[in-house]
């Protein structure tokens, strides 16, 4: 690999900076009193404190999982601060009241909030270290009955909805990190699309981790009632810190009869430096329950950041004729490790699922697809199509595919296709011989490779994702 190309791969993290905002940070460590403190800080009702304490009790009985294809030092859960909130005026009526330093942060990230709202018509629920700073377009959404707010606000304003659905898709005892999240989550987003409403705009949340050593435990809950539909966008960036940050979010989606939820993510958290020092541990539990007949849940993700990514956005296909989709691009470089995929659990009759996974590994990184397709005895006529493609860049990267297929109904059809390709010297030479430099060539090859996934993204996200991959990979072959 030539020196010039090596330089391009080793470009420092573009969004690596720390915003100087005073944070209210809890002391490190976790016990029952920490949980009571978090709950008290947020003026939570008794039932939510109970939920947290039960989750904590479940977590204490669980052991940290170690089956994933990733290697990292033991996490000391007592060395993490479980609460951090920027000091802000309690209530903001307009954007003018938002801390200008915070707005500058978004400028650097290329998220011009005003423009984005005005031009794209996107309501951005801005999350800054666990606490929602401002929620926009709420009124317009309220006109059609859509609730889009921070999780804590939902707890105050719509406790009956939160209580009804919280933990129904991902029970607090589901897994180690989901239990931890359920015990200590601070904030996140809440969406409720009432019966028959097509959400008039894409809902978007930009996440950003800012305080060093603070664990991030976001909680997202999205409910689409009968015949409702919504497209939700999640995008993430984080500053460059030298110590690892644990992120264990939980996202729950519920789709009732004929409802449609599309959830798109572009993730670009700090991945560590070129020697693998620092970077975010992203251990996320995302699951959708296609509860109603003809309901549809679609996950699209573009994972480019984090030192370790460990997530399996899944769909439980409970309703007859329900549809689950998973479109994923996972890109790893340097020493990044990604173990990601999906679970499609077919329970209802004639349920259908599609899995399209594209893994790109460069540098010394390791990229694994892990997916489960499970057809229950009740799922007559169920169908699944899975396609897992891996692309290797350079000599030192690794790609792995771990498909698990369990079929307990003989009327089901399950298809799995996999391929591995390599951006080789010969491909690059072919482009060069046609006058095209290495950066443009890699960009074109990668975008071609990811096309099936990118076309699932909302337009402005697709553009961002294309730029992001190009930025992260251009010229990484020579």
């Amino acid at each position, binding site marked *: 690999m*030539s020196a010039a190309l090596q330089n391009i791969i080793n470009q420092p993290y573009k969004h690596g900076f720390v915003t100087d905002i005073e944070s209210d940070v809890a002391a490190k460590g976790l016990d029952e009193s920490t949980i009571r403190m978090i709950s008290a800080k947020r003026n939570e009702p008794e039932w939510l404190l109970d939920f947290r304490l039960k989750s904590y009790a479940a977590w204490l009985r669980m052991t940290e999982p170690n089956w994933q294809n990733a290697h990292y030092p033991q996490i000391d859960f007592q060395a993490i601060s479980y609460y951090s909130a920027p000091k802000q005026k309690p209530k903001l009526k307009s954007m003018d009241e938002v801390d200008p330093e915070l707005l500058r942060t978004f400028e650097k990230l290329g998220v011009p909030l005003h423009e984005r709202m005005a031009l794209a018509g996107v309501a951005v629920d801005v999350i800054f270290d666990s606490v929602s700073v401002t929620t926009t377009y709420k009124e317009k959404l309220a006109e059609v009955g859509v609730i889009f707010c921070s999780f804590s606000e939902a707890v105050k304003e719509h406790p009956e909805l939160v209580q009804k659905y919280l933990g129904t898709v991902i029970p607090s005892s589901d897994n180690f990190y989901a239990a931890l999240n359920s015990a200590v989550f601070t904030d996140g987003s809440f969406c409720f699309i009432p019966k028959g409403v097509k959400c008039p705009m894409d809902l978007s949340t930009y996440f950003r981790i800012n305080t060093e050593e603070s664990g991030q435990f976001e909680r997202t809950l999205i409910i689409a009632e009968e015949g409702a539909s919504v497209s939700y966008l999640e995008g993430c960036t984080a500053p460059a810190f030298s110590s690892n940050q644990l992120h264990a979010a939980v996202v729950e989606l519920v789709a009732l009869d004929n409802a449609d939820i599309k959830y798109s993510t572009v993730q670009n958290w700090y991945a560590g430096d070129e020697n693998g020092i620092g970077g975010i541990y992203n251990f996320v539990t995302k699951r959708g329950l296609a509860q109603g007949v003809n309901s549809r849940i679609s996950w699209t993700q573009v994972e480019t950041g984090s030192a370790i990514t460990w997530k399996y956005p899944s769909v439980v296909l409970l309703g007859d004729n329900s549809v689950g989709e998973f479109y994923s691009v996972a890109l790893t470089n340097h020493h990044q490790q990604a173990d990601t995929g999906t679970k499609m659990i077919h329970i209802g009759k004639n349920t259908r699922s599609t899995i399209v996974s594209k893994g790109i590994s460069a540098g010394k990184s390791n990229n694994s697809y892990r997916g489960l397709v499970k057809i229950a005895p009740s799922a007559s006529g169920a169908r699944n199509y899975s396609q897992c493609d891996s692309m290797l860049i350079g000599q030192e990267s690794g790609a792995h595919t771990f498909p698990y297929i369990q079929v307990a109904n003989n009327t089901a059809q399950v298809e799995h296709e996999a391929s591995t*390709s390599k951006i080789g*010297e*010969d*491909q690059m*030479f*072919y*482009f*060069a*011989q*046609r*006058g*095209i*430099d290495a950066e*443009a060539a890699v960009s*074109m*090859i990668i*975008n*071609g*490779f*990811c*096309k099936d996934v990118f076309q699932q993204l909302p337009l402005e996200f697709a553009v961002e994702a294309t730029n992001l991959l190009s930025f992260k990979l251009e010229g990484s072959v*020579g």
Partner: protein
Amino acid sequence: MIYPNSKTILEVRNLCASVSGTPILKNMNFTVKSGEVHAIMGPNGSGKSTFSKVLAGHSDYEITSGTVLFEGKDLLALAPEERARAGVFLAFQYPIEIPGVGNSQFLRLTYNTVQSHRGKEELDPLEFDDFVREKMKLLEMREDFLDRSVNAGFSGGEKKRNEILQMALLEPRLAILDETDSGLDIDALRIVSKGVNYLANKDNAIVLVTHYQRLLDYIVPDFVHVMEAGRIIKSGGKELALELETRGYDWVSDEYKAAARVAA
């Protein structure tokens, strides 16, 4: 065709190149003037394909000594993409498949990249579409060809036609066709040759690397060279190729060795 007072396009002097420490080209000398068509022939392993790739700048080959001037400039100092933009074109023996990358998108990128480096006008997708379809007629290519991925799933003949289409788009000063005839049936050979002949003019030059006379029935060379062990051991006119067809290469090799003994 040989034109009086034509300019020298390529001048290779005492070129030596090796791959992983093994010398492949040994004192290669080769001169091409504008308007000319050269054929380089020779047995397998004689260094023909290496020579093509060295001219295009493939990184597997290390230049150990010698010079290459392209229109009077040091070609070896240029990166492969710079050579392409300057007008060196290599039609690959085995064109690479690039799944997922649309052919029309690829062709437009290469065309516009080269155009902009030559200070010429770039074309937008609609203009380019008209332009490329016109060129495709020359090579009797089907319309759906533009919608497919670059070379992916193409037949041998389609791949080679795609190479010549790119030559037609990029209008190189020097086109090196590395065994373009291999894997072609007689119809495809005729079409590809027609394309090359159409593109040949007094301002450019063509170097055909081939094993077989049959290509030279369609594209008639001004000069035929025989390579062996990394150098040209005999040059002649188009009749040399016919002689090779009937007599093989051994006599050329014997002649060269005898001459070398006399010289010693």
